[in-house]
């Protein structure tokens, strides 16, 4: 069984790498409805930040990351993702706790993936399909890595006012929200919500 876990780590690593590769790869729209356009906008915004010569170099890192974070914040609905990840534990929180958790979760995802954003190396993104069903939309995308592997990535969006915001990403069919939902639930039921928060804070703080 150990082999499977190593393989899973490997998969997770590559997944993470490509999850953020996709956010800033060159986009080739095939069928561009509004949700697809929104994804492409954010993708290209981040791409332009990462390839901007004025923002290159480790001394510009703070500013560059703040810009990337800003672009991602526009497109991702962190509150909805937090609610879905905490699932039935969400309603037990008061408003302050909800706000704090949303910020912590966003920071966790940022800490986990932002490093790799800057590792862009020419991955291609093709927009394969878009399905809109009322206030929900699915944007299917394929990332072509430099090694020739094709990774299917599905963005799940929900309409918020006039805007479309991402509430989940599925890579190779595996949902990000479901992944955290299971882990958060395990920790909360085995220990407590406070223990989960502490764990996440530790994870965010480690470098």
């Amino acid at each position, binding site marked *: 069984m150990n082999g499977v876990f190593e393989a899973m780590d490997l998969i997770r690593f590559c997944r993470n790498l490509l999850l953020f590769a996709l956010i800033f790869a060159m986009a080739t729209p095939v069928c561009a409805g509004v949700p697809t356009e929104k994804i492409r906008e954010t993708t290209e915004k981040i791409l332009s930040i990462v390839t901007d010569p004025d923002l290159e170099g480790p001394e510009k890192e703070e500013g560059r990351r703040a810009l990337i974070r800003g672009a991602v914040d526009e497109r991702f609905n962190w509150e909805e993702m937090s609610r879905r990840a*905490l699932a039935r*534990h969400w309603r037990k929180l008061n408003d302050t706790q909800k706000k704090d958790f949303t910020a912590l979760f966003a920071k966790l995802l940022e800490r986990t993936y932002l490093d790799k954003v800057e590792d862009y190396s020419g991955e291609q993104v093709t927009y394969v399909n878009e399905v809109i069903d009322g206030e929900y939309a699915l944007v299917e995308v394929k990332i072509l890595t430099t*090694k020739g592997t094709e990774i299917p990535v599905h963005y799940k969006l929900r309409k918020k006012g006039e805007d479309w915001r991402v509430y989940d990403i599925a890579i190779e069919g595996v949902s990000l929200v479901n992944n955290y939902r299971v882990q958060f639930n395990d920790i909360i039921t085995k220990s407590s919500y406070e223990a989960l928060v502490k764990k996440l804070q530790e994870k965010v703080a480690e470098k």
Partner: protein
Amino acid sequence: MKRFDIELTVGLFIIAGILCLGYLSVKLGRMEILGGKGYEVYALFSNSGGLKDGSSVVIAGVDVGRVKSIALEDYQARVVINVADGVELQEDAIASIKTKGLIGEKFIEITPGGSETVIPPGGRIRETQPPIDFEQVISKYVFGKVD
């Protein structure tokens, strides 16, 4: 007369036995584990991967329903499941197809969501995850890494 009585009795017992057997078969065949009719919801999967009518539906390891039917709809698998009464599915619950045991039997696992809205009878579980072909995924990434 005596012979006729015995034969009659034996005959009646056999008929009673067959009726009981029939009743048992029907009951077990319908696999009513829930007692009570339950309600139906459906979900669309890009791939139902070996899921069958009668496959279990599980939450937190507990059987809460059965797959009632699987049909092709718009090139996706439309899976109708029968859920026990009293088990609520939130609007953002996620249904995944997983594999159980050595035989590789497929079942649906539902992780409860955090929404206040509940999926009504006849409603749809929107968030689904198809079965993951581990071998395919591993080979994809292993190949990618060996450089």
